[in-house]
């Protein structure tokens, strides 16, 4: 689905078409590892397994440059070296270039072998995580994990505003914040990923009234 300069992907990222750059947010890689550290006996998928959907999505749109709008890792302090090694191998294998704008979960990326940038812009669009002060001009952000929830059903969604694009969390582990009934999103358009399809629900407040 096309929206202004962006192509929205059902693999939970957006592509800035003029520059051929994909923007993805809230990957929370290593979530299983962090839960295990706390004592849970849960599976611990590899980085490649966690990025399978992204790999498929990137192949579909034919893009090889990716910017992470924050929260690449669930916990940037835990087993980062091992995860970075796996991630670098994956990037090489997929021929993908990656830049990371840190989020609140991975503030401490000092000494990282990845390309970490505090500020990133694609065309007129700034890429931010969204947990701090928001830019005055147009921007793409993560952090909010927006989703559309009706009863027991829940779907991750993009929120499209005048000069703001809120990305869904890439990680399926991330619980979403329901956009319906949340006054902050009044006037924004909601495009949700339902059963592998992108569906335009229009204005959030109108959907909320239904």
């Amino acid at each position: 689905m096309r929206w202004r300069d962006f192509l929205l992907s059902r693999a939970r990222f957006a592509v800035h078409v003029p520059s051929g750059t994909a923007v993805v947010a809230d990957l929370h890689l290593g979530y299983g590892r962090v839960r295990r550290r706390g004592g849970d006996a849960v599976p611990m998928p590899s980085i490649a397994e966690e990025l399978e959907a992204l790999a498929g999505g990137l192949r579909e749109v034919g893009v090889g440059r990716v910017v992470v709008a924050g929260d690449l890792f669930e916990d940037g302090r835990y087993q980062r070296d091992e995860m970075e090694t796996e991630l670098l191998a994956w990037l090489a294998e997929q021929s993908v270039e990656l830049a990371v704008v840190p989020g609140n979960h991975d503030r401490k990326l000092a000494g990282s072998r990845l390309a970490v940038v505090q500020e990133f812009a694609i065309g007129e669009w700034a890429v931010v995580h969204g947990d701090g002060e928001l830019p005055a001009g147009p921007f793409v952000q993560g952090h909010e994990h927006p989703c559309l929830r009706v009863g027991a059903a829940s779907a991750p969604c993009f929120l499209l505003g005048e000069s703001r694009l809120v990305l869904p969390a890439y990680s399926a582990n991330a619980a979403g914040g329901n956009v319906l009934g949340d006054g902050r999103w009044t006037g924004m358009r909601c495009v949700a990923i339902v059963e592998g399809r992108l569906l335009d629900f229009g204005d959030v407040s109108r959907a909320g009234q239904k």
Partner: protein
Amino acid sequence: MTHFSYLDAPASSASALAALPSWLAAWFPHRYGEPTEPQRLAWPALAGDGNLLISAPTGTGKTWAALAPIIAELCSSLEPESFSTSPLRAVMVSPLKALVADTARGLEGDLADLEERLPEGHRLPRIAVRTGDSSAAERRALITDPPDLLLTTPESLAILLTRADMAGVFANLRWLLIDEAHAFASGKRGADLALSAERLSALACGPVRRVGLSATATPLPETARFVAGTGRPCSIVRAAGAVPPLLRLEPLPEGEKFLAALVQRIAKELPRHRSTLVFTNTRSLAERLAWTIRRRVPAFDGRIAVHHSALSARRRRETEQRFKRGELAAVVTSTSLELGIDIGSVGLAVLVHPPGDVVRLLQRVGRAGHVPGGLRHGLVLTASAAELLEAAVTCASARSDQCEPLSLPDAPLDVLCQHILGACCAGSRHPDDLFALFRQAAPYSALSRRDFDACIAYLRGLDCEGRVWLAERLREDGDCFRVKDAQTARLLRRNIGTILTDRTVSVALRSGEELSPVGEIDEAFAERLEPGARFLLDGRCLEFRSMQEGAAVVEEVVGRPRVPRWGGDGWPLSPQLAQRLYLLRTQAAEALREGPERLRQMLVSDYALTPEGAEMLAAYFQQQEAVSEVPDAGALLIEAVDAGHITELYFHTPLNRPGNDALARVALRRLARDLGRSAQSQVADLGLLLQVRGTVPAPADWARQLLAADGFRAELDTALRDSEAVRMRFGRVATTGLMVLRNPIGQQRKVGGSDWAGRELYERLRVRDPDFVLVRQSLREVSAELCSADDGEAFARRLPLLTVRCRFLRVPSPFAQAWTQQDAGPAAEAASPQEALLRLHAELTGGGDALA
């Protein structure tokens, strides 16, 4: 094979007392008067050998019936001769921390009184309490200086059993007492306790005699089997002669006038009794009712309190003590005062709405007249004709002692995982030994080796093909297994037990500079609070100010509040009551054919209804007959209502909500697959509603197709695997099964949210291992509890013998309205939860009926 024998003829007081040592026999009447019936039955029985179940109504001196011979032994026992010098001879397990504390307080008082009558060479036994409230010093003292008698809860006992250094402490154990056995037996806590009992008995050098205390429970041999374990004999003493409770049944106006009428009715009763206990079924009604009484009946403003499990423990203890001292005229409670915490003598038990089963009714009314021989008064108030009918059947069943049969849980595997790990914390264990030991526990008598081995494999972190994929909790030690490391043992102790609570936020009341805890509210409710929002808790109107360190800080104000939401309120009718209610309706319809007067007579004479109540029900049946018919035992009645583009099909069945849930899930699946129709469903006691898009020309033919018995179980199984119910249950099973810990180490990130296990983890496990042991357990539980596969399938098998009648109505009949207006039960889900989103999308974009 377990052997049971009933010992039903009570001894005389004199011969019962003769079963005790003379000094104790002399003291007892001085302290308590004549021995009660259960005491006269139990003491001679305990003078012999073997296990015993004592069944008697609440308030008939059961505790001393069990304890007197044990206290006698403890006072005179010599130093043990075995390898351990631990004096611990008896362990008593009670279901609530408060009950443990209460029993300990009572016993300390008794022993202090007994001290001066002790003959030479005797000593008072030392009592210790071990619960979640025990201090670190008290916990240590249990090992360094064990008592003679330990009072504890199942969870604390399970923690003690994980420690290698407790083996010596339990070595001389001779008695295991299980208090309120009926309250444990049918749930997972009972399974947990039964496994602990086996592990405990295995640590003792000699035989451990088990004594169970139970209120009336049927069948008693099942409770006895729970207490004694598989294959062990157990005697049963049953105190008869409990005077049936005096039950009054009164209908109140329906709808909006209900609360006002309820307050008025209760206000009329309050001055007539020393104390009144009001049960409301839900915590929110308890709050609303107490608040309204305080406002509308100012004379009782300071003399009424609320008691439910979302209030802080301190606040609950305070209320119990004030009620016992007579400072409170009434306490309004949801369910938390059903169990036997001593709250003194209660004049009247009021039940607002029928309680859903007979056992619960008797437990609640049993709280009134809580003294030996006291007459129990109960008043049941109902809000509609349907409720009145339900209450009439419940009360009639109670009068004739027709309680729901108790059944033990079928080897819950999540609890088993805790015990396998627990046993392996205290030392290396051979799996064959553990399997044999655990099969002794009654709930695990049919445990299969396949299930047991699947638990071991999971705890070793292995998948179905033997590859490591989960964290390892157990490791091999030759032929045996032992816990992986000390950290894993610590994790188990932090997360032991089967009690799972919904995520809550604590509420702190600000008064000047001080903050004091009031209770808890659901996290979801707390998240929606904005400063200035008002809600009811503890019978007070509270205004939310801010969140401070994870707690909602409030101030007490005067004004209009909302009622917070709590999970877990409400439950369905028991299957037995659903059957009886369905039959009563049939009988009533037959009586009505002889005229309304005959029906009124029947209701008054057979069901003890008041003339007003009988009149209300006669009118209710006449209205049903006027627009439709009263379904009978030989037919399945379907009422079809054309609601525009949807056809509503109301199926009237003799099943309770879980039974109808099973029917609805299979029907929805077949509707979508075989008939290409999308539908939604709603399930209730005595019926289910299918809302089908488009017209349905021949509902009777459909019914036979949708509810056919062929393939029923397999299709239900497939429907359940995709269902929200199993996902949600998996979240709980994964917690009890130690996969996702309630109390992890360190600060757990909340990115996954509270439903992560049911949402994300469940999917991953299904893909890797569809028969994963905890997924299997979740499916079993949902098939047995929320959705009764057995009852649904049995109905489907009977269907060919039934006439299926369909009536086309313009509006739902009075019977259908009654159960569709109940707000207690969630509707069964549509075939795919995502459909709700697709439907919303279709509505917003004018996409028409994209799902039809």
